[in-house]
């Protein structure tokens, strides 16, 4: 197709629709596509379906990021990172792993907490421990109850144990000073 084989065409197209730039050696069609408003719509469609899926799997993390006005940007970063699954559960796990490397320690802890919830949800004998940079309860209460978190909040690191057998699915305790 005008000096572009199918494999090269598909690689160029995938790079573009997932948010990347055209390459210098792309043919005119691909370079023109990079400036097309239709490409923006395809990117929106891809973002919409990923958002829809990840909101269902990563309920807490998605809600927290939305409260911070960061969800859409994180979805774009997730798509641009390259290797995401069409499967909701796998994509959800990938997204949560991305968030465990976030600069915000609360976002990191919440993502680890949500991973732990998924890993323990079928077996009451399974448990996971997640360290938080603060008391997690105001954050979780805010997400589950819809209330606004207390400004400032408690900055005492906590250890959270996630286990389906526990009342409410988790318990937490302050970490001894210097162990956080």
């Amino acid at each position, binding site marked *: *197709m005008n000096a572009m084989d199918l494999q090269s065409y598909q690689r160029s197209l995938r790079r573009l629709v997932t948010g990347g730039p055209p390459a210098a050696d792309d043919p005119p069609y691909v370079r023109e596509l990079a400036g097309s408003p239709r490409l923006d719509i395809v990117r929106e469609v891809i973002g919409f379906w990923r958002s829809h899926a990840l909101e269902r799997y990563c309920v807490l993390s998605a809600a927290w990021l939305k409260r911070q006005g960061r969800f859409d940007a994180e979805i774009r970063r997730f798509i641009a990172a390259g290797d995401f699954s069409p499967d909701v559960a796998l994509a959800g796990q990938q997204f949560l792993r991305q968030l465990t490397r976030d600069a915000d320690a609360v976002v990191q802890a919440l993502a680890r907490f949500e991973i732990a919830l998924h890993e323990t949800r079928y077996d009451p004998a399974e448990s996971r421990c997640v360290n938080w940079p603060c008391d997690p309860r105001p954050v979780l209460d805010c997400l589950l109850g819809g209330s606004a978190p207390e400004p400032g909040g408690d900055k005492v690191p906590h250890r959270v144990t996630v286990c389906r057998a526990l009342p409410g699915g988790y318990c937490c305790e302050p970490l001894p000073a210097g162990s956080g």
Partner: protein
Amino acid sequence: MKCARARIGTSYEAADPAFVERILPLVDYVELIPDTLALREGRRAIIPDRTLRELQTLAQQATLIVHGVGLSIGSADGWNDDYFALLDQLLDAVPVAWHSEHLAFTHVDGRFTGTMLALPRTQEALELVAQRVQHIQQRYALPFLLENTVNLLPDPPAEMSEAAFLNRLAQQTGCGLLLDLYNLECNAHNQDYDAADFLAELDMSRVRELHLACGTEHGGLMLDIHSRRTRDSTRQLLPQVLACAPGVQAVIYEVMPEALPALGHQAWADEIALLDSLL
């Protein structure tokens, strides 16, 4: 002219008691998408036993057909083998009259594109897909159909028209065609061509199944979302197509579960009854 063999059906993604109670009695065909029936077990996707048992019960009341979204039949570097594992599991458990896939690609170098993308209509793409259709036909003793897909992007340089591409695939492989009338409307709008020209060129003798659906318009483009009742313009195509496609056996109304909270089961049932009245 009324097509004597066409019967109504709809898409279904399992575990919906209201479907079984209110929709199933209205249809002759139930179309299943293996990818949406599957759950993850570690790294592997499987269709749960409870879902297979439900489908075995459905099979006593309707003819099951399978429609793939995840095969990525047009990927130059290879298709998605995981899809075959799901299809094998499904076909081992329930009787299926035929199966189909979109003429598109969803993976490149094993990585998901995030959406279904149309193939460039070139000789290279034609030969690739024809080989793969033949492989599928050898692997499964079932009729296999290819569906026309929506292209939101500007049409890439092509060596043949969309209808000619489908015709040549059908002629070379003997596969059937699944003609999605809403996709046709979307492409006619998005690519600025006349749906009548496409229909006049398409080899209607190859069409075994029709899809009808409705989505939304965004940024001046028609999107294939399966979220609404069909438009008048889509329904008007139905008798025209049936009149010249005598091999059509199933007319499927597609709706996605995510749309049901807004659409409702009553509207779903009403739409099926309306379409059935046109057959």
